[in-house]
Structure formats: C-alpha cells, structure tokens
C-alpha cells in the first residue's frame, strides 16, 4: 500500500504531459499511445478481420488477375496450343521470334501511332474546347453534356456510328460527291488512311473526358492570378502561358496518362471498324493481335509472348509518363 500510493498522485500528472506531447506531434503519436492496450485483442481479432474484410477481394484479384498474369508469362515460354498438344518448353524462342515477325511489328507500330494521335488530339482538342466552354450559362452547361455523351457510349456503338458515316458509299462520301468530289477517299478502305481514321474515331470518343477534366482544372484556378497577371501587363497569350498552363499541370497528367493507357488498349474499334484491315494487319493493334493469335489461331504460347511485351510496355510508358508529368507539377 505504501509503495502503491505515492504512484497514484503521480499518474495523473504524468498523463497530461504525455497528452500534450502527443497533441503536438499529431495523429501518429496519438495512435501509438492507444495501441498498447488493445494490442492483444487486435492481433487476436486481426486474423478474422483480415478474413472478413480483405480476403474476399484479394482472393478474387489473385485468382482472376495475378494468377492469369503469371500464367500468361508461363505460356509465353511454351508452344502451347490447346488444339495441338503436347505443349513443349521453348524458352525465349517466342520472344525472339516476335522481333522478326512483321505482323507483330506492324501491330506494335500501329499501336504507337494510334496512342500518339489519340493523346495529342484529345489533349489539344480537349483543352481548346474547355477554354471555349469555361463560362457560365445554360448554353455552356448544355454543350458540356454534349461533348461528354460519347464517353458514356459503348466503343462498339461509337464505331458502328462512324462506320455508317465513313464507309465508301457512306454519308460523308455521298456528301462529298454531291459537292463535286469525284473520287472521295476510302476512309476505311484505303490502307494508307484507315489507321488515321481509326485513331480519329477513338479520339472523338475520348475527347469529352479531357474536356471535363480540363474544365475542372480551369475552374480551380484562382481568379486573382489572372488579375495579378493583367495588372503586370500580360496579354491573353502571356496569361495562358504563365498562369493557365502551369496551373493545369495535374489535369494534363491525368489526361495524358489516361489517353496513353486507353490508346494502348485499343481493341473494340479495330474489330468493328476494320477487323485489322484493309489488307494484312494495316490497322491491327497489339491487343487485337494478341486476341486474334490466341483465339482464332489458337497459338496461345506465341500470343502470350506478345501479351507479356504489351504488359511491360504499358507499365513502362505509364510509369515514365507519370514520373515526368508529376515532376512538372511540382516544379511549375
């Protein structure tokens, strides 16, 4: 009792000191201070909490994304073909074969072309339209919705719409003929043109996404910055360069990364608009080539090697782009 009592009056005086220190250092210390008491309860309940809250999502993700990625990687080292067993180990033969495969190289080149065009058109066009629509009023609200409608539509629907317009005797060419053009271009049937037509359709659909992101970015710029720039004698162009463009950096990051990833994935539009043609693989993309090789040709091993290359490229491009663009956000 005599040992215990002197401690008691000390205890309350110790707690406030601790608390004020915790208050100063903020949340983390606060959490640490609470942690020791329920620790045993926590680790005991930790496993069942994990089982209830985390396990369902992680298990499905593991089974239907991570395991398939591992399987694709494994298949890429074999000659797997479900209709032509046995499957043999071929090492890196598939991978090295890809780089002398004209169809694959063409698909890779097409994917790069589509991605670059889509990224440039959606960003430049999206920013221009966002600048045009950055006002209040019913007209601008209505137009915002108009530009966003294609984002909500299925890529298949968008492709069928444009196909009806762009086929050789479609709407556009019959209008051109009415205007006196005797041999209007074969937008989807000319091997030199079809890839650009496909890129345009993909860009048209993605434009509204960029418009909305840029509009939000523009509306987040404090008015005072423009006023200060105007007082300093900046004209409209200078104001754009010195205020608008740097302040839009986060929006540029989102739009560019989304367009890059979207362009790389391009599949639906190819299948509906051109089915990879006209001619051998003139508009084929990586995604299209992978699916064709795996499901129509049944060369699963070879298709998996393409898929691995595609995955590595997407990862590399997104990481590099994200790094570069976010660096720009910080410095500007």
């Amino acid at each position, binding site marked *: 009792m005599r040992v215990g009592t002197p401690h008691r009056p000390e205890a309350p005086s110790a707690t406030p000191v601790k608390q004020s220190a915790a208050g100063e250092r903020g949340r983390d210390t606060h959490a640490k201070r609470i942690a020791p008491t329920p620790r045993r309860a926590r680790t005991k*309940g930790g496993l069942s909490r994990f089982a*209830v*809250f*985390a396990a369902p*999502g992680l298990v*499905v*993700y593991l*089974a*239907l*994304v*991570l*395991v*398939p*990625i591992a*399987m*694709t990687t494994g*298949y890429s080292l074999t000659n797997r073909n479900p209709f032509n067993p046995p499957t043999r180990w071929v090492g890196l033969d598939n991978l090295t074969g890809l780089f002398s495969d004209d169809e694959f190289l063409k698909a890779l080149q097409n994917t790069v072309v589509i991605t670059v065009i889509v990224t440039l058109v959606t960003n430049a066009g999206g920013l221009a339209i966002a600048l045009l629509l950055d006002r209040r009023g019913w*007209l601008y609200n209505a*137009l915002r919705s*108009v*530009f966003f*409608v*294609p984002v*909500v*539509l*299925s*890529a*298949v*629907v968008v492709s*069928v*719409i444009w*196909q*009806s317009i762009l086929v050789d005797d479609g*709407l556009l060419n*019959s209008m051109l003929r009415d205007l006196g053009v005797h041999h209007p271009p074969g937008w989807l049937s000319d091997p030199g043109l079809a890839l650009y037509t496909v890129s345009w359709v993909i860009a*048209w659909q993605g434009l509204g*996404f960029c418009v*909305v992101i*840029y509009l939000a*970015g523009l509306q987040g710029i404090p*008015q005072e910055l423009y006023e200060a720039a*105007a007082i300093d004698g900046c004209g409209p162009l200078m104001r754009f360069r010195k205020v608008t463009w740097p*302040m839009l950096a986060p929006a540029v990051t*989102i739009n560019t990364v989304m367009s890059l990833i979207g362009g*790389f*994935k391009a*599949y*639906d539009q190819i*299948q*509906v608009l051109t089915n990879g043609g006209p001619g051998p693989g003139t508009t084929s993309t*990586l*995604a*299209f080539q*992978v699916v064709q090789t795996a*499901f129509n040709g049944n060369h699963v091993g070879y298709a998996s090697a393409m*898929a691995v290359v*595609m*995955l590595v490229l*997407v*990862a590399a491009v997104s990481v590099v782009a994200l790094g570069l663009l976010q660096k720009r956000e910080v410095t500007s």
Partner: protein
Amino acid sequence: MNRPHQARTWLRPAGALLAGILFFLPIYVVLVNVFKDGSSIVSDPLGLPSPPTLDNLQSVLSRPDHLFWYGLINSTEVTVISILIITAISAMLGHYLARTTGIVSKAAMVVLLCGLMVPPAVILTPITEVLRALGLMSSVPGLVLAYIGYYMPFGVFVFAGFAKTIPRELEEAAAIDGAGAFRAFWQVVFPLMRPASASVLIFLGVWIWNDFLNPLIILGPADGTTVTAGIYRAIGEHQADYGSVFALMFLATLPILIFYLAFQKQFVKGLTGGATKG
C-alpha cells in the same frame, strides 16, 4: 467570375455552338435515322424524319431470335450483380488497407494499383482457363467473377482514398459501444462513404454495360450475349440495313444513358476529384 471584358462577345457562344454541332453530328445521324424507313435513310440521311416511323424499333423488339431482349436481360444481370458485389467487396478491402499500416497491406495496395493498367487482352486467355476449371465458363457468374477481379483495383483505389477522410474516432466510438468490426463498418463507415460508392457504382456501371471483348469471349456465342456483343453480331448479319442497326443501338444505349443522366453530377464529381487538387 468576372473575366476580363472582351470586345466581340458573340464570338465565344457562336464558336462553342458550332463546335458542339459539328461534334454531335454523328449522334444526330443515328437519332434521326432510327425513325426513318430504309429508302429515306439512303436518299436523305441528314433530314428530319417526315413522317417519323417506329418500324425500325418495332422490328428490333420483335426479332424472332429475341437478340435485343436476351442481350438486355444478360447485360442488366451482369452489370447490376457485378457493380453491387464489387462495391461491397472493394469498400471493405479499400477501408481495411487504408486503416492497416503493416508492410503486407502496403504491398497489397501497390500490387492492386498496378492492376489498374493491365490491358484486358493480356489476361483473357488464362481467365477463360481459370473459369473453365471452376466450371463457370460461358456463364453469367463467370463473367461477373472476371469483372470482380478486373475492377477490384479501381474500387479499392477510390474507397481507400476516401476512407482516409473519415475520422478514425467514429469507428473507435462504435467499437466502444460494443459493435463488432463488421457491424461498425456497415452501419457507421459504409454510409459515410456514400460519395465513393456513387463513383464506383456509376463508373463501373458504364464500363461493364459497354464492355465488348469480355462478353464476346467469356459468354461466347452459344448461350447468351450482352447488348454490345449483340450489336456486333447484328452488323455482321445485315450490313446494309442501318435502320434496324441504329434502332438496336438506340435501344441498347437508352438504359445506360438514363442511368448516366440520373447520376450525371456524381459522375463528373468523381471524375474531377483528382484534377482539382492542384
């Protein structure tokens, strides 16, 4: 919002209107031609329908193979079940990962976020094999399961980000009041994450409804089709008959368009959450 005064005030609305009209022209073409007969689609594709006809819509609705109705039922089933399950599971996982600080949950977060950029084509073949092993290939549950896996990263990303804005004290209070972790989550935390749930439901609703490649391969031709895969099959059949193809697209898009218009505000809010932080 007093922008510096500009001299030619009619220039901006006129330019905006012109850009909007040009941009919308392809959709206008579909909308007017749904209500025209075949010959006037060819002779006057841009004019308003006069007199308007419902023949195209009727022929799609009364197709003997029920392509539209089967597609509608499958699409609705797949979309509704998928988005409800993904929202529930990814909300729990996202919240869990945001609240635990161990190295395992950090690693799980990184691995999940990497999944955001995996192109569907990369994993489609093995997915069909996993589903076949589970006996779920060519079935709606199989397609739903594929979506749950594929869109888990997006759901976790949204919910984990949002969970950080919810004060931890609320959950601790619920725990003190004797609620188990499960009840505390569903009765206290989940209702607070309503904006995150709205984003996830709306985005996934649009993406899954519009998806093409997965239903084409996983559901396959035999058993069923979704509306998007159905449109693709219909254009193969009657290439020239744009009246009924447009009518099919119009009907297939209507549900998701209504869904989008009803939640438009949350959709755009969810979209722009990251763009305005700078």
